[in-house]
């Protein structure tokens, strides 16, 4: 990549980009909070595991659920139905493109409905609004279980 070498006329651009990304990474590491593996977290992970199995999914690793969702559902329960989060949620319900070819598809019914299960277990007060949004979707079966 000779034209992209650091000792180029655009080195300040590179340095600026690196500084910005490293700063973000440092902030991310500082703010990163290890999920607390409390009894409540284990209980909720077991409850969620039961819900998923009842919905026809293979049994998930409950330790992994504890580490990812803790006892409060983590990001999944952070204002899940706000306008902007819903917008991204709808945009991401798409094909496998990562560039401008992103286009919505007909999503899998069970996979979409499983999205509500975490709210049901971890933040049931937020489930109603999300369920309304899920009920508005047209879904089908596209994922082979």
């Amino acid at each position: 990549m000779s034209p992209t070498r650091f000792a180029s006329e655009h080195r300040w651009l590179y340095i600026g980009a690196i500084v910005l990304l490293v700063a973000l990474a440092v902030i991310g590491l500082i703010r990163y909070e290890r999920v607390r593996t409390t009894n409540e977290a284990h209980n909720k992970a077991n409850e969620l595991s039961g819900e998923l199995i009842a919905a026809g999914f293979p049994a998930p690793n409950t330790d992994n659920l504890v580490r990812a969702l803790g006892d409060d559902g983590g990001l999944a329960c952070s204002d899940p139905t706000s306008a902007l989060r819903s917008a991204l949620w709808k945009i991401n319900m798409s094909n496998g493109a990562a560039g401008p070819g992103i286009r919505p598809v007909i999503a899998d019914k069970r996979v979409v409905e499983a999205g509500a299960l975490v709210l049901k277990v971890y933040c049931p007060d937020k489930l109603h609004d999300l369920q309304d949004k899920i009920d508005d979707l047209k879904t089908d079966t596209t994922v082979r279980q």
Partner: protein
Amino acid sequence: MASMDVPADMPKKQAAETAARAAAPPRLTWMTLALMTTASVASLRAAPTMAVYGLACVFLYLVPAIVFLLPTALVSAELASGWSGGVYKWVSEGLSKPLGFLAVWCQFAMTIFYYPSLLAFVASTISYIINPALASNGLYTAIVIMVLYWTGVWVSSQGTKALAGLSSWGLVIGTLVPGTLLVVLGMIFLAQGNPSAAPMTASHLLPEWTGLASLVLIVNNFLSYSGMEMNAVHVSSLKNPAKEYPKSMFLAMGLVLLIFILPALAISWVVPSGQLSLTAGVMQAFDAFFAYFHIGWMTPIAAVMLISASLAGMLTWLAGPSKGLLEISRQEGYLPPYLQQLNKHGIQQNILVTQGIVTTLIALMYAFIPGVSSVYWIFSTITTQVYLIVYLLMFVAAIRLRKNQPDHPRGYRVPALTLVCVVGWLASAAALVIGFVPPSQFGSSSTGAYIAIVGGGLLLLGFLIPWLFLKLRKPSWRTTGGESG
């Protein structure tokens, strides 16, 4: 940049400097161009979405690769190895100049709606690092979109070399490194004797077939590879375009396939689809993946990497289509002289700024008006429909060029070009037709209404606006030599 002419109202000294820079385009290596092409098309953003399909994600990427990626890459490799300038030049030479303008306009116009959704994704990923609650904040989202977009415009205006470097490194740091990490960790997971979370048996190679929904999924995935031809506009920056562009395209093709398929598979080995579906966002999926390995602290690092890949992709899109639009407009006077002006680096700064103003307005509406953000997904359908016009024109132009100019020197010739073009054209036409099928987000609303919205958007953005440019153009707007179309 073929000519040294500049608009008449530009000061002479500045015009001479600009012309000198334009006459000597910056050199890119074929490897850099391959990385730019890969950055335009592929990133890890789609990996969690496709991991839900398990082993079938291989099918969902390979079939489109055969019928769409391969034709697009091979045909653009032949065309770029014979004609510099990109899609506008190919369609102009093969069909007509107005259709050449239509092709590059469609490639350019669809990006206007792409940037706000891309940058909204970046804003939400940054909020994951700083404070997740910000993801729901319109002011925060608007500020991030504005700052990143206009920084991108500024970087693009610094010249092709600047953005080539940043986009290549963005791909390496933001996609290749974390993608490799995901795959290695996935293999360690299997090597430890753990069963794959998604069944990896032959019966799971194909996605569930339920008729229209499955067809929509498969055909819409053709568009995963859209953009492979876009960076051909930089072909004149290669030392030996005839030999190097095909090489660059083949490398990009391999990288894109690997980036799409392997990380999605790795995630599906480790994180069950039920758990992936719980994750209403890309970062939550990575969080679940890294949590298994007790390296949850990697998630914010992965977030930074995804941000760098997304911005790298944006840079390539800012620079490519606008350059093609400029070149045909300078030759044929399709845009007013103001929009044809170049900055001291030979970059189409005024097109970028004008595009930026429109993008800013759209982004503000996205951030502050819930009614706009909630239906923003529909613009991605309209813009992909508009983009498909480019491919329909490109494949026809390639057949015509082979027939009408068989002896024109080309560095690479596609074997069985007509067959390849017919396959690519049919795949593009199928994607265009499937684009009128209402997706999940449209709910139970009327199919007719959906067809009217998508069709209306396609007509407005893809035909009416470029037709107005053609209708209103003036001979005096031509700033370089060229025959009127």
